């Protein structure tokens, strides 16, 4: 299983805190996001990815506490049992 947690505006938008999905060999972050969108009726992927499928700056994605920016980006592999956090942080002061 893979557990996906939503934070801040994503939690407000999707009206849910988490989603658990079955793990499949070779799963990466991009594939996971697509599968999450397929499970959730509210469109949200356009807030994370642009038309080219590039991650939009504004949300951090953590796989087991590590920002995918330092891993393999959207191609970061996801292990069975992993926790993935989608967090659009506040930026103002």
């Amino acid at each position, binding site marked *: 299983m893979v557990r996906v947690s939503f934070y801040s505006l994503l939690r407000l938008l999707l009206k849910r805190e988490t989603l658990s999905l079955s793990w499949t060999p070779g799963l990466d972050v991009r594939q996971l996001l697509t599968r999450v969108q397929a499970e959730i009726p509210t469109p949200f992927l356009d807030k994370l990815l642009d038309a080219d499928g590039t991650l939009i700056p504004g949300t951090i994605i953590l796989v087991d506490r590590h920002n995918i920016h330092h891993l393999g980006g959207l191609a970061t592999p996801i292990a069975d049992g992993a926790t993935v956090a989608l967090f659009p942080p506040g*930026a103002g*002061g």
Partner: protein
Amino acid sequence: MSTTPAQRYARQLPVWGEERQRRLARSRVLVAGVGGLGATVAQLLARAGVGRLYLVDGGTVAWPDLNRQTLYGEGDVGRAKLSVAAERLAAINSAVEVIPLAGRIDESFAVPSGIDVVADCLDNWPSRFALHRAATVGGWFVHGAVQGEQGQVLTLKAGTSESLERIFAGLAQASEPLPVTPDGAATIAGLMTNEISAVIGGMPKLLDRILVVGLGDFHCAFLEV
């Protein structure tokens, strides 16, 4: 008219005790950014009885600041935030030493020696990252940020925690001013002040752990980093 610490702090001493109060009085906190978060954090720390406050800001008070920047009023528009903040904080608690440091935080910024806690109340990621890189001496770093009615607080410790820049890597600063509500800023500032006080008391609650708060649905969640 004068008073004693026991009288001035009579309503909080039953909550956190005399030892915490003594620690607060000995503490030096740097508040980076005296805007929506920093004005309230500085004010609450002054009311709590912190010993010394270093304030860093290079801005002037503008009309859009008045919805949330609690140290300023209409008559202050156009004045340097640091000057107004120093006046107001002195009026609130004359026992607190306030040291204004004018300017913006970039790669050239150096955290003064002897700081116990750095409070990141800034409004942009590049300055936040520069501040954290500079905050290697003081030890404790409490990050706060707000946007709309959402925000987060996180405590990092020099030497053991991940860098702020690594945790929030990949973010870009918006080109336009971000929306912030009065209650959103006050909520995050209050949580930051609570955590700063806890750090000073030796019991941080958010070390390597982001507290995410949203007023839109009153959610509260933790995210380990």
